[in-house]
């Protein structure tokens, strides 16, 4: 399952620059709005699902090599956050759905966590 299919299936809105999402194949996901928990729990090439939309999510994703962040419940990052994400190569995706629904759908699509 690549990121392009995930974007299509979940009808996610792309907030950052388009890139070749078919080459990004997430190996799992992590959900939390607490940055330190994400630091501890998200592995590289995971998707991160969160309500947080401020600038610091980009730094966290970049350090962890998380390719994309799905921002739920229509929380919108500001222009500086989007610019920073483009600079760091992090994709920001937005959805009106709550986190629980997105997690459930991702799991159904076969995006499970790695053990």
């Amino acid at each position, binding site marked *: 399952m690549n990121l392009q299919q995930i974007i299509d299936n979940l009808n996610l809105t792309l907030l950052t620059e388009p890139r070749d999402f078919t080459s990004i194949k997430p190996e799992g996901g992590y959900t939390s709005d607490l940055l330190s928990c994400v*630091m501890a729990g998200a592995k590289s090439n995971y998707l991160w699902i969160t309500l947080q939309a401020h600038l610091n999510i980009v*730094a966290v994703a970049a350090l962890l090599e998380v390719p994309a962040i799905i921002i739920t419940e229509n929380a919108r990052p500001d222009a500086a956050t989007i610019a920073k994400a483009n600079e760091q190569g992090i994709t920001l995706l937005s959805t009106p759905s709550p986190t629980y629904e997105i997690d459930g759908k991702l799991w159904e699509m076969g995006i499970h966590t790695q053990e």
Partner: protein
Amino acid sequence: MSPTSRLPVRTPTQQETHGRRDRSITDQDANAINRVEELSYDLKVHEVMTANMQIATPDMPLSAVLEILRINHISGVPVVKDNQLTGILSLEDIVRAMQKNELSAPVSQYMTSKLITVASYDPIVGAMQKFSDSRLGRLPVVDEDHRLVGMITKGDITRGILVALQKDYKEEEVRRYRASHLFEDIVSDRTTLVLRYNIKAHDFTHGGNASSHIKRALLRLGADPQTARRCGIAVYEAEINLIIHTTNGGILKLEVESHRITMSTTDDGPGIPDINQVLQAGYSTATEQVREMGFGAGMGLVNIKRCVDKMDIESTVGKGTKLVMRIYVPTENFNGRKDEKPNEPPTDHRQS
């Protein structure tokens, strides 16, 4: 190849100073500009154009031009007379002539003489603009005296950008190669590379910048990805602690030696009353406002401990706190060779 060689410095022409470069660019604008956009202003038309092009003269018969197009697999040629560009002839023009069975007619009869040209010293963004406005596939390139010096296609622009990006990539490789030999090339009884970062209190906007610089520096120096990641996480938590909790900010320091990496933060207050308490997972003194941003989970020091081999924290209320974190690295890390098999990530001690 010299990795630092740049394009020759030249005084900008009148035309260029009227372009985007003349406008003052804010930090935010600058952040939003990606490398390809930057290149579309940096690269000039003459750097990507085709200079050795086929040309036609106005009195040539169209059948001869058709032969030139066929042999060279091109779809149009500039028409030149006395060194001056006078028109352009494309396959479409020839098709028009064929419909009237006039392939023996001279080029001048069917060529387009209303010309859209680009100047050779224009940035390629100018050519891109003309391509999108005119929907033409190729444009003649002229010098200051309107002499034809080349042809440019969209393909030339794409190729030029790709070559420039490839050069960027190579430069990064060379930088990385050089840095990774630092500890081999500089001989001393003990070599230490020290990087210092000043962290401002409550500056969430720049939170994580120092950490990402540190992670990149470590990778360039030859650290294996897993070690760089562990350092990145530890130093991020320490950096954020300085931003959230200190009165006047503090200093983040990275010391790289061939056998270990030491990261430390020092600040001048307020100090921690009970260190055992802050080491407990979930304990936090962060304000509600900071917690809303997702900080203050009470996991910072716990995360650091998990990522580093040794962590020491000393604090005096009213004087300040010193946090020292240390990671021992396999010897092959900093002598130019890459570690083929990265260490397993440390296990998560949160539950224990």
